[in-house]
């Protein structure tokens, strides 16, 4: 018996992680690697680089070097162009706005949370300090977005 379904067994889409702290990225990767899913990750350390990657400009002019991510994980506090500005630009761009953005940040400031949701962020997670909770949050994040939901890249043409 087969159900008509949009997804077939295919490689999970690219996860773009925009995070300036190498230690935080290390911790994130550590837990993502434990998932049975093999999720390709691209890591940008600042807002400008992330926007160039998404817009395919500068050193990313060749679309092969910058495939469309299926999900964007965004830290708010980035050097140079701030994460909030990056979110704004993504959600105001006709092509980029369909990509779900999950803010993964230390800020629990209600103003930040509200501003992000108003901007259209898909989900807001406060980075837990506790080691076990961090592991749990990342597991849930991966399970939810890559194993439960259908990401837009599955259905939207990957043409540039």
């Amino acid at each position, binding site marked *: 018996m087969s159900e008509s379904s949009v997804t077939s067994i295919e490689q999970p889409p690219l996860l773009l992680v925009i995070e300036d*702290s190498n*230690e*935080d990225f*290390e*911790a994130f990767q*550590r837990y993502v690697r434990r998932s049975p899913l093999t999720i390709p990750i691209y890591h940008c350390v600042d807002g400008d680089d992330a926007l160039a990657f998404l817009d395919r400009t500068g050193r990313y002019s060749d679309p092969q070097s910058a495939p469309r991510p299926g999900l964007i994980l965004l830290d708010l*506090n980035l050097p140079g162009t701030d994460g909030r500005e990056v979110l704004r630009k993504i959600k105001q761009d006709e092509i980029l706005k369909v990509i779900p953005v999950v803010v993964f940040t*230390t*800020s629990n*400031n209600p103003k930040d949370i509200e501003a992000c949701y108003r901007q259209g962020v898909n989900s807001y997670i406060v*980075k837990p*300090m*506790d*080691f076990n909770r*961090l592991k749990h949050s990342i597991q849930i994040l991966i399970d939810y977005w890559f194993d439960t939901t259908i990401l837009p890249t599955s259905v939207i043409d990957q043409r540039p």
Partner: protein
Amino acid sequence: MIQTVDWGGNPNKPVEVTDDGETRLSPRKSFEKWQETVQGCSLPWRACEIEIVTELRSLIVGVILKQADDLAEINLELERSNTELDSFAYVASHDLKEPLRGIHNYSNFLMEDYAELLDADGVAKLNTVVRLTQRMEDLINSLLHYSRLGRAELSRQLTNLNEVARQAIDTLRISQPQSSIEFRLPRPLPTIHCDRTQISELFTNLLTNAIKYNDKAEKWVEIGFTQSGKGDPEDPLLYTFYVRDNGIGIPPHHLERVFQIFKRLHTQDQFGGGTGAGLTIVQKIVERHGGKIWVESTIGEGSTFYFTLAARQS
């Protein structure tokens, strides 16, 4: 203004109506001036007087406008410095937390990845590092919370303090199912005009302390109040609340110190630890509501925390 007005005749003398329905005027027979004393009416304004008053009016309006401007500018400055303080506190806490998180995570990674190489002592030491990072995070969070509390706008609403106290009590009971604690309310607490969230936190902190710093088998906490003032604008209604416990008490030379931020009277191993910010926060909340807080205590017998809150905020 009393003035005498000359009329030809009484202007108020009505037209007479005779019995057969005819109307009849009765002109005066004398030519004497009929004088009316007009009292309580003002003289008409002279042109020069009008000019002077108009000028005075524009001067007054000018002064008011300037004061309004100054006030607006002060408010803007305040908002700016509040925003700056907010960003400072936020940035400071965020920037401090990042390396802290790194230390916390990497200590855990060490324990996970090098488990075979570490003996019990090694693991214990790393666990100490982890515990210290958690403590530091609590301190940073308390500092940030205290800082925001001092600057947030109060959202005043009619708050039934009885409900607030009950909620705080219920929450505490859930977190301490084993302990035997008696909460006494001699009479229902009043309803006052205040920021509900902050006052909730105030009660929670005071009640938590009352139970925490208590070594008796049967703990009790009493919440009550006295009233002063008649309730009119000159003599507003003021409540003096108290939270009394049968806990360990506070030595007289430490009574002031308990309100200092991060200042505890005990080590982290004693009485469940803590950041030492609880009473500092309570004091800040009381002050923001225009009240005062103080404590009386007897070592070994218990403490009573008193705080004043107005029924209505002006």
